[in-house]
């Protein structure tokens, strides 16, 4: 166990870049920092190499974009807008500049994730009014130019009562690339006051219709009330099915999603595990690089690690806890 970095006490959000060599940190005072492994010495401690004041309020979330577009970071603050930053060289010094800002009147971004599809970089944003927007980068070199590619509601309004629905959180997970190709598919879940709509859905961009369609729902009978806090889609290193983990209000759920070989046929979702050891909210779930180990963190303050045994049954393998517990 090694301590990599001692952050400021106000650090509010962290994210690692693609290779784990850089750490972006958002602070409660609205600053963004970039930490990098100290060169030489062979150790693995990190130090802050860039810092800039990005907001007046705290940074709520920060993520890295695909390295195929440079060193790119997107962040959001309590004002609900998303800012995009990139590192460039200026006067022989690397520096971070703001490229653009995504904002919507009267609503805030709850979650956002980059997808690196064949058509270019995409940013999916789940806005607090229940609208999901997909933005496309126009010029592969220029992070300033974006256009709205799609705008749809996660929930189809059937009863006309959508105005009474409110969304407090959202979680988005892209299907990770296979052979460096990312399909335009992601899973998304809102946490809302309407129990019926707390379900994770898988959205796919269908070329035939030129629009995003929900192709699967991760809904198990009898558990419709469980809201979703976190989604994680495992890299498929060669399984015949996809693995999606859901951190819900009461359990870690693991789903198999089997995409059909026949075009136009919807994938089949099957829940393979419901793990309740956290005894409460599961705030985050995260797959490792192979999809063999799932890490989860919950309201019990413990990080738990899960693996399937050779019969395919998911079990808790280890926990990380503080010395005093």
């Amino acid at each position, binding site marked *: *166990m*090694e*301590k*990599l*970095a001692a*952050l400021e*006490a*106000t*650090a*509010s959000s*962290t*994210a690692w870049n*693609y*290779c*784990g*060599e850089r750490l972006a940190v958002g*602070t*409660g005072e609205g600053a963004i920092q970039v*930490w990098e492994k100290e060169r030489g010495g062979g150790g*693995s401690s990190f*130090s*802050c190499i860039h810092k800039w004041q990005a907001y007046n309020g705290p940074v709520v979330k920060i993520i890295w974009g695909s390295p195929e577009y*440079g060193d790119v970071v997107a962040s959001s603050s309590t004002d609900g807008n998303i800012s995009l930053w990139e590192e460039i*060289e200026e006067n022989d010094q*690397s520096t971070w500049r703001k490229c653009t800002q995504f904002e919507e009147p009267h609503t805030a971004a709850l979650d956002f994730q980059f997808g690196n599809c064949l058509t270019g970089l995409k940013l999916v944003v789940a806005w607090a009014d229940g609208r999901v927007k997909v933005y496309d980068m126009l*010029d592969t*070199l220029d992070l300033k130019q974006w256009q709205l590619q799609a705008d749809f509601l996660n929930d189809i309004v059937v009863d006309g009562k959508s105005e009474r629905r409110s969304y407090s959180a959202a979680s988005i997970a892209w299907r990770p690339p296979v052979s*460096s*190709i990312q399909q335009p598919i992601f899973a998304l879940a809102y946490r809302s006051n309407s129990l019926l709509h707390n379900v994770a859905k898988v959205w796919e961009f269908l070329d035939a219709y030129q629009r995003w369609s929900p192709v699967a729902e991760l809904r198990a009978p009898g558990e419709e009330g469980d809201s979703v806090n976190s989604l994680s889609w495992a890299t498929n*290193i*060669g*399984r*015949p099915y996809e693995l999606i983990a859901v951190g819900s209000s009461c359990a870690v759920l693991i789903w198999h999603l089997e995409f059909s070989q026949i075009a136009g046929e919807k994938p089949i979702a099957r829940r393979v595990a419901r793990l309740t050891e956290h005894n409460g909210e599961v*705030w*985050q779930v*995260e797959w*490792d*690089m*192979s999809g*063999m*180990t799932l*890490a*989860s*963190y919950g309201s019990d*303050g413990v*990080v738990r*690690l899960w*693996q*399937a045994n*050779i019969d395919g049954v998911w079990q*808790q*393998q*280890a*926990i*990380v*806890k*503080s*010395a*005093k*517990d």
Partner: protein
Amino acid sequence: MPAVAAASMDESGGATSSENGHYTPQNLPGVYQLPRSLGEMQTPSMVCIAWGSGNKLRLSFLQHSVPAARSNTGTEGAERGNGNGASQSGGGAAVIEIELGGRAALGLDAVEDAEKRRIAYGSLPAFALLQNKRKMLQQAKEFSGMLPDDWWEHVLEYSYNISNLLAPTSTTSMGLQLDKKSRKEKQEQTLLRAVWELTEIFFVDKHVTSWIPEKLVDWLTVYDRALARTEPTVQTKLVALQHKLPNIQFPEDDADYWEGACSALAVGWLDIVIKFLRMHGSYRLDQIDNRQAWEKWRSQVAKLDNSMFWSECNHHGTLLGLKKLLQILLGNVDALITATCHWIELLVAHFLYIVPFSMVAGEILSIARKCKQLKHVSGNENLRELLLAIISNDTEIVLAECSQLFGPWMMAHVVELLTAKSTHAQALLLEERSALGSISLEELHRVIYAQVLSSHHLTWQLSPTYLASCPKQGCGLLENVLLKQPVSGNSRLFLKVLDISRLYDLGVVGTALSRVVGIHNWKHGRRGTGIMWLQQARDDLRLAAIANQLADSVTTFRTDDIESFQHLEGLLDLLDSEVRSAQGLSFLHRYRDFKNSLHEIREYRSSDLCNPKVTVAGRHAADCLLQLLKPGASPLRFWLSILHDSVDLLEWPQQVLLNEVETTTLMTYLQELKLAEARGDVEAVNALSSEQAKQQLDRVRLALALNLGRAILQS
């Protein structure tokens, strides 16, 4: 699965080194305890989980709801003194990294990392060689997939290679000259080697079947001390005696002397028995140094039992001691039990003195089990179970216990031994299982080990060899391992990754990483390198975008800024080699020529105003300009820049460079541009919107009008 489970960490982050520490029972989760410094931190309001390469779990402990002023008094602050990031109050939030199963990766908790790497590097060639042989043999058998009957011999060679890598053994010691300095590290490796070689005896070597007892005696000779790590053995007993005996004048008077001799005899260490007997004051005969045919042996011993010798022997201690030895030779069960310590020793004694192995081969499990019961001590049950399973060829238990005791390295390598000749083990390990995502156990263990290797920057490059032997998931994981390498700032690493991706036919990975490196260089000011790598990636999209960006920058170059202009020229040359399709490239070259000739004119003028070359250069520049103004030759957004650059030619002092027709052409372009702006053409509007553009426009108009006048007059 072993990769994360079997480790227990103490507060300082080291693995618990107690006897039972890393042998976590399978049904209980392993516990990673955070360092106390973190435990004392105010309860984090949030923990952020992230994964690094391999099995590296990275956790950020955040407490953003706590105002900075209330930051605690923790001493772990690690202020880096750079003043631009590290907490000034100490403590605060922290990021830690846990290498899951890292210390247990070889099952060798006490073994230094460097030693583990030595084993990892050393075992790779043996593994690769065996896989190559398998491939070749399978291909030779015309894809029947069946391995030849002598396959086990190849595995045996592999086994020797691996075993030689593990802790060196001293076969001459006969278990007596124990190296006092031998550290725990050696013991653990020796235990690993002991298990490895025992597996080799029972699972691989077809030749030893008829002389397994002898093999076991030899094995005990070398490894009894490894077994002594967890419970008492004959070897421990003898080592104690070894220190005691030299100080005794008449060893035959000491009961321990005879017990020692009995024990050594029981496990078949005849050399040691002889050493013992030579210490006896009256030792003369050397009659027990050869194992003979079973019946003959027995009858001789029985004869000895009834011989006149006993009545002649007047030393009571010798009499009793020799009787005990005889009881061992006669296979007296009680005597054997007393003489031996470890159950394997009892098992060996059983084969040597009670029933020969050839007669009980089928019942070995029940005999072994009985020995284990008789010698039950509270020791390491996993190890006892493992040894029993190896002796009784129980593949499932061997797998389960090996994984508990030794972790991923052992699992990835021992599978070859298990499947060498046992069809049951082959079925078990090579069958694809839907519960595992359609891979076999063999592949699973290789994938797990490869992931462990990929956790470390000094071992990740070993993982491709193992992944190459994983038909289903190897390629996918290898892609991931390569794509997670920090290539953008490390060109040596990048070239190595490129090599590996070429070697394993992973062109997409090479392309993706070339793109990453290309863009990184481009955005960090190393434009030439950036273009080169994007060309390697055949990324026409980005190269076209770069050509566009360069085109834009052409207009902003001042003609006297020769350095940046040459730089641009270099970039254009680079782009030219492969991206002929990129729009506007021929324009860029023409524009470059035009700018070059303008630059030349300035050079000549600065040296000598009346230089005759100036006029020639002027005419050349005018020709370049007219090339640029051919229909469709230049994008509209550059027209103003071109026209503005031509002012020098229009106002040529010595003569009229551009005639009436040529000047009219220029004027047409100016008019077109204005019309386009009026139409709302984005390019035109953008080109003419700035205040500077308006001034340039006026300047161009004036120059055109003047030159037209001069041209008409001249004609």
